[in-house]
């Protein structure tokens, strides 16, 4: 970002709801099936067909609203009219001036808060693919339309223009994805299109200036492209203004390969959607009981989960920067319950967090299925010195593959048994005798000398193929040094 400028960003996020069936008919809501197999008169928009609202979709929309701290209101559906081949009725049923969720907010991990203006329901379109070299409609030989996605339920989440950097926008997208997943409403997969992000970007010289003219950027397929596109777009607008030109309000397309945005259509070419109340549907008026029932089934949101882990760390003396990163990782991968149950079983929060963030996270899918009791047992063994850290990691890898088991038996099967004190002492002694110079310097102490503890520990570990307990080695070295 060029100094002397501030960017203003608002995001519009479309997320596909994880319902079994579509928004207005009973067709399966499935990704990746053979084209035009999950269709019926309603989602094909055949003459005479009528929409019937999916109750589960409403509940997931309300779950999103609740998770984003929105007011849930009586709402209506409108028709948004425009011609496009993948739009079966040539209008889209969408909520317009009376959306189901309004006035919420999302708190980001850095402590900032982004306003949510609305989160409304609408139906998805089909997918058009263009045959020919370009892959785009212009210049293609012919086009094919797959209506499997037609009528899939969407919620569009519109943020306030509250973000001021591409990093904050990326954090918002990441946190929103986590909230959507945690609420059970969506997969939140940007790459598969189940979460699609459009960015509204403008620039201004000072926080006291009014907002500049904005451009909307489409075709952002990852959080990374979101950040790149915002940076590019802000620079483009600044260059225009500094050259004495003006920013024209328009919709722009992010070209990932070229790393730039290009004009899609300007405001003058914008469609007149001729919104009017959808006469085939009736107003949606959820009562307080229904809203409460949805809220009761909602799981903990990521921010609450992070706070829970931080509290555990603070109870044992505080959280370091790197531990805060581990907290974010663990919550992001939805492995925090493993940490909490291990701590409840008596394992230190630092150890539980480190093993989860560093090792269990390597196979998060398996870790989410792992038996928490087995995990607790393993960490308890490591804490007690029954197995070394290296051995614990090896057993954990096995546990993840099997989904559970008895870690003690698995350690024994691998030949991991705690070394007796005698055998450890003799190994340490052998290592010390073999390296008299280093031993001398270690005995001198001081900053340089103390560092050699690591040298000796490493040799002991090598000699015992990782079976020695690191702490026990350190204790033995200090005993030999005489203090």
């Amino acid at each position, binding site marked *: 970002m060029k100094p002397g400028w501030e960017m203003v960003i608002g995001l519009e996020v479309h997320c596909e709801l994880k319902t079994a069936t579509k928004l207005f008919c009973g067709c399966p809501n499935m990704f990746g099936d053979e084209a035009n197999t999950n269709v019926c*008169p309603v989602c094909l928009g*055949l003459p*005479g067909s009528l929409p*019937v609202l999916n109750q589960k979709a409403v509940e997931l929309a309300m779950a999103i609203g609740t998770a984003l701290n929105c007011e849930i209101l009586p709402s209506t559906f409108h028709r948004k*009219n425009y011609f496009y081949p993948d739009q*079966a009725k040539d209008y889209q049923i969408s909520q317009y001036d009376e959306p189901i969720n309004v006035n919420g907010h999302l708190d980001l991990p850095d402590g900032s808060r982004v306003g949510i203006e609305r989160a409304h329901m609408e139906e998805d379109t089909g997918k058009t693919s263009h045959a020919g070299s370009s892959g785009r409609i212009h210049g293609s030989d012919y086009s094919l*339309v797959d209506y499997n996605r037609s009528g899939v339920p969407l919620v569009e989440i519109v943020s306030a223009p509250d973000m001021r950097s591409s990093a904050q926008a990326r954090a918002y997208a990441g946190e929103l994805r986590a909230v959507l997943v945690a609420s059970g409403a969506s997969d939140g997969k940007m790459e598969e299109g189940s979460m699609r992000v459009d960015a509204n970007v403008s620039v201004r010289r000072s926080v006291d200036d009014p907002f500049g003219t904005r451009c909307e950027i489409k075709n952002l397929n990852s959080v990374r492209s979101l950040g790149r596109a915002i940076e590019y777009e802000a620079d483009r607008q600044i260059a225009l203004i500094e050259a004495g030109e003006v920013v024209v309000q328009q919709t722009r397309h992010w070209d990932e390969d070229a790393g730039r945005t290009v004009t899609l259509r300007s405001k003058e070419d914008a469609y007149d959607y001729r919104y009017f109340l959808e*006469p*085939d549907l009736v107003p949606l008026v959820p009562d307080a009981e229904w809203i409460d029932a949805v809220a009761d089934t909602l799981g903990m949101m990521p921010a609450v989960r992070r706070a829970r882990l931080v509290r555990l760390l603070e109870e044992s003396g505080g959280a370091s920067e790197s531990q805060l990163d581990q907290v974010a990782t663990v919550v992001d991968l939805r492995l925090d319950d493993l940490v909490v149950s291990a701590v409840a079983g008596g394992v230190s929060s630092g150890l539980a967090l480190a093993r989860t963030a560093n090792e269990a996270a390597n196979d998060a899918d398996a870790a989410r299925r792992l038996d928490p009791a087995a995990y607790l047992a393993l960490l308890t063994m490591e804490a007690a010195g029954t197995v070394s850290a290296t051995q614990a990691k090896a057993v954990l890898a096995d546990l993840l593959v099997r989904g559970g088991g008895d870690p003690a038996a698995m350690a024994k099967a691998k030949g991991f048994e705690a070394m007796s004190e005698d055998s450890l002492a003799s190994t340490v002694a052998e290592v010390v005798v073999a390296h008299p110079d280093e031993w001398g310097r270690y005995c001198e102490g001081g900053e340089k000398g103390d560092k050699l503890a690591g040298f000796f520990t490493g040799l002991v570990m090598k000699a015992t193929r990782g079976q020695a307990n690191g702490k026990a080695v350190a204790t033995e070295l200090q005993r030999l040094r005489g203090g």
Partner: protein
Amino acid sequence: MVSSGEWSAVDILEQHLAAIEAGDGAVHAFNLVTADLAREQAVEVDRKVAAGEDPGLLAGVPVALKDNLCTRGVPTTCSSRILEGWRPPYDATVVTRLREAGAVMVGKTNMDEFAMGSSTETSAFGPTRNPHDTSRVPGGSSGGSAAAVAAGFAPLALGSDTGGSIRQPAALCGVVGMKPTYGTVSRYGLVAFASSLDQIGPLATSVADAALLFDVIGGNDLLDSTSLHRPTPRALAVLDDGVDGLTVGVLSEFLDGAAPDVVARVHQAAEALAGAGARVEEVSVPEVAFGLSAYYLIAPGEASSNLARYDGVRYGLRVDAEDVAAMNTATRSAGFGAEVKRRIMLGTYVLSAGYMDAYYNQALRVRTRIIEGFTRAYHHCDVLLGPTAPTTAFALGAKVDDPLTMYLSDVCTIPSNLAGHPAISVPFGTGDDGLPVGVQLLGPALSEGTVLKVAAVVEAAAPPLAAPVLVEGTPT
């Protein structure tokens, strides 16, 4: 008769198919006669009767279907080129209910294209003619259904009524036609014209038959979100209750623009009701005068959206062109007739940014005022009485090039659609030209029982109407 074994469904069907064969060349009530499918249905009814199974309320009764009701595997054209070749993969809910009631569906009837018209002349397949005088129109848009019943091609027919499309042709053809309360009959499978106004209803030779058909097709349907969740009252059960103690309001605004011979028949019907024990008084609902204007903003607005899907991409006509947008334009230019295009353009305009509030939203406010006006009248009236159409059947070609004059045909029927209320047209003698006159009874929402029993009294007092005599062959 069929359930008792007196007649076989096959015999009844063959008589009607013979009548169609003999007379429909002159009338053109049907776009398609589904003789083979009808024979299969009739055979099945006869099998059920022989086996002692319940053949249903309409066992063996031939029914004609307006060609905007979806029939599985059977072409459904809305009398438009744009649906050429399209066969719906599903049945409309009313069609399913007819099947279950043992009805025998004889064919799909002609209509104004997409139900836009009042004379059946905007059909892409040529006009239907009035069986009472084949130089006259049958009214519209359900002109084919009304003519089929009047000509004896089928004792029952279904039509759809968006601004009078059941009642006005019923009046012009001398048959009974009812538009039920919005939401009492499922619209699932009715090809939409204006969704907030469309309602399917019966056409029949008698009030009792219309009531029976309404009982069969009505009731909640999960496939239509605007379908009412309430037990369907049996209209047929109250038909003979009479009008003693009821108050009938003669709606003065409806008399204002009507021809003197039509007005005379309305007064005669009012006298008959008074004679049967009803209190009759004159009532004014000034708001209904604005109905026509409001209707021609709301209905085209909704139609412009409903008819957007006929774009050549998925079904029906496609006229190829160099790209998708050009193909859309070419298809729609070739596939729609002039009246449909006129209404799509009008509707697109009234919904456009900058114009919506002045036109569409203003019309919605008028609609609310009309409901309020009716509600006021129903504080002291049980039903309202007036003409169905301002005139008897007019000559073919007389109004087709003058849309505004044509639109006036529906001035007395439109207010019930805007209000969502039930209304019925009952034949009541003829005009000075010897052609049928229909009188209309209107009631508040869900008052079908009351409206029908008053209609039965009017029917009993009506001067006799000569059956149409059809000459074989095509009209000159």
